[in-house]
């Protein structure tokens, strides 16, 4: 589980000052990095995470934010180089969208980059890192241009600073698909009074009384039409067998009160589904607490199941 103060993703941010051409070769990037000078502290470029969407078998969309965590505006931000590590697609992914002019990224602002790539095959599962290289200018430290010497391009190049981002695609800690430990026993909610003297824990009369004032949760049918067909005390396993594998959440040998109901039961689902009326339904009560654990629909009597 993600904790307060944890970082979502590992981020490496190595801004450096450098003279810069429009597009650099990998060798030139290496040279630039080796000869880099410390960057202005006023702009801090970061990319906390990235993601890959497989649009088809050979088409990927890579998305990541370029954030400016500094207190100065970053201008002329450009992304020139993107690489997945480890990559089974070669050292450099080529995208028709590179280089990208990100433009201005305000202080504590961000701009989202989305690139599309054609690749030889589907993405393998696992973790990846994304290496992003680009440049920016610090609006505060940018040199004034008086237009006297006509050398604005060279001054722009001198002002450019290089950033290198290495972004992990490790699943964020918030994506906890399989929490550890043993799930809690379902509690249901209070429904029937339980006989303190012992078996049976409740009677059919108790159930009839209950359904004179309580509808089934999520049932849009009328409460007044509900009648109780039967009450049986069955093991959780027997109920599951009766219902075609529906699980109660209890252990197999725990006993529940299984009630069949007649009436007009109407359930629906997410939008675009059709409300469906059922003439029969069931309810399952915990024999220990009398709590209502689950409800559901049954087919018409005599109908094939």
């Amino acid at each position, binding site marked *: 589980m993600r*904790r307060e103060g944890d970082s979502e993703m590992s981020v490496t941010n190595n801004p450096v000052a450098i003279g810069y051409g429009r597009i650099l070769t990998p060798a030139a990037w290496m040279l630039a990095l080796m000869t880099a000078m410390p960057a202005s502290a006023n702009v801090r470029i970061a990319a906390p995470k990235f993601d890959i969407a497989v649009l088809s078998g050979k088409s990927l969309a890579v998305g990541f934010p370029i954030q400016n965590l500094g207190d100065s505006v970053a201008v002329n931000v450009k992304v020139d180089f993107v690489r997945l590590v480890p990559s089974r697609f070669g050292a450099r992914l080529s995208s028709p969208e590179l280089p990208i002019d990100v433009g201005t990224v305000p202080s504590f602002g961000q701009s989202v980059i989305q690139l599309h790539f054609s690749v030889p095959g589907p993405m393998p599962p696992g973790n990846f890192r994304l290496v992003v290289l680009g440049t920016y200018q610090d609006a505060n430290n940018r040199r004034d241009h008086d237009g006297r010497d006509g050398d604005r391009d060279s001054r722009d190049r001198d002002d450019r600073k290089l950033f290198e981002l290495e972004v992990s695609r490790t699943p964020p800690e918030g994506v906890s698909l399989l929490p550890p430990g043993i799930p809690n026993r379902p509690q249901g909610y209070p429904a029937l009074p339980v006989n303190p003297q012992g078996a049976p824990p409740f009677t059919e009369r108790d159930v009839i009384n209950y359904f004179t004032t309580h*509808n089934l949760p999520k049932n*849009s049918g009328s409460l007044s039409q509900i009648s109780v067909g039967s009450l049986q005390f069955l093991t959780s396993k027997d109920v599951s067998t009766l219902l*075609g594998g529906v699980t109660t959440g209890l252990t197999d040998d725990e006993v529940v009160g299984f009630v069949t109901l007649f009436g007009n039961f109407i359930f629906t689902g*997410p939008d675009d589904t059709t409300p*469906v009326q059922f003439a029969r339904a069931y309810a399952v009560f915990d024999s220990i607490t009398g709590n209502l654990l689950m409800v559901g629909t049954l087919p018409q009597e005599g109908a094939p199941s």
Partner: protein
Amino acid sequence: MYTKLLSPVLTSLLSHKQALLTSLNKIPAASLILGLLTIGQAAHAFNCGNGSSGHCYGRARWIEQPQYFGTQVDISEVTMVCANGSGCFFIDNETWLADFSSPGCVNNGFGACWVETGILATSDKASNVSSGRFFFWADARPAGVPSTFNLHIFGYTDPNGDTDTFVILQDNTGSAGVFQAFINNYARGTYYKGFSTNNLMSANRITIGQELAGTNGANADICDFTNNFWVRTPLGVPMGYDIRFERDIGSVAVRHDDPPFAEWGIPPLLPGNGDFETQCCSTGF
């Protein structure tokens, strides 16, 4: 409002919203107005199903992928009331993983199979006990099973201000047609899990949001849906963690029947980011 770490941008935006609400509550007149609005919400009439007509929704959905093997969303705990005897059937905040295309699902009466999990308040008297709302999960299975629709009540929810994680995950470790639905909140020790079985659906839609059924008596404070993810591979093969590309979501993906009111409070510009909000029933955002 949140106990989990959100992205700096999201956290910043949420803190501004919280600060605004806090400052409003410091003003007696504003508090009075907010109180009156709350009272008014409970008495607001709506037309959201009398059994034969459809329910109302405030939701966002994803249909971009050919198959979704699961979904995860964090849902905040907020006051949600469905007054007994008022004409309210139920109101909930939840997520659905659904199949609208497999033949067995198209022909099960509903026109779809699904697994859903969330927070539910009903007009049942029992729901007025304790918190008045409870965790649930449910499924609608393909045609041919003895019970098409099954609803399971896990138990009462966590208190207002908490945020719980809701996950639906296709489980390919054993028999076919199994989905896990679980809810967790480590800080509270909340961890419930259910298994949908004989559910041979191939999910092609994820929905998050609020469902409202009835004509009166419902009320729900602003609920936040955050950390939205979809699952790329089922349980049982190497796990994939492709996160939903929420940035692909256009305005057409949001439905709000007013009520429920719904919107992206914070646009989902980043995968897994964004804050989808629902609210019911008399006033919008």
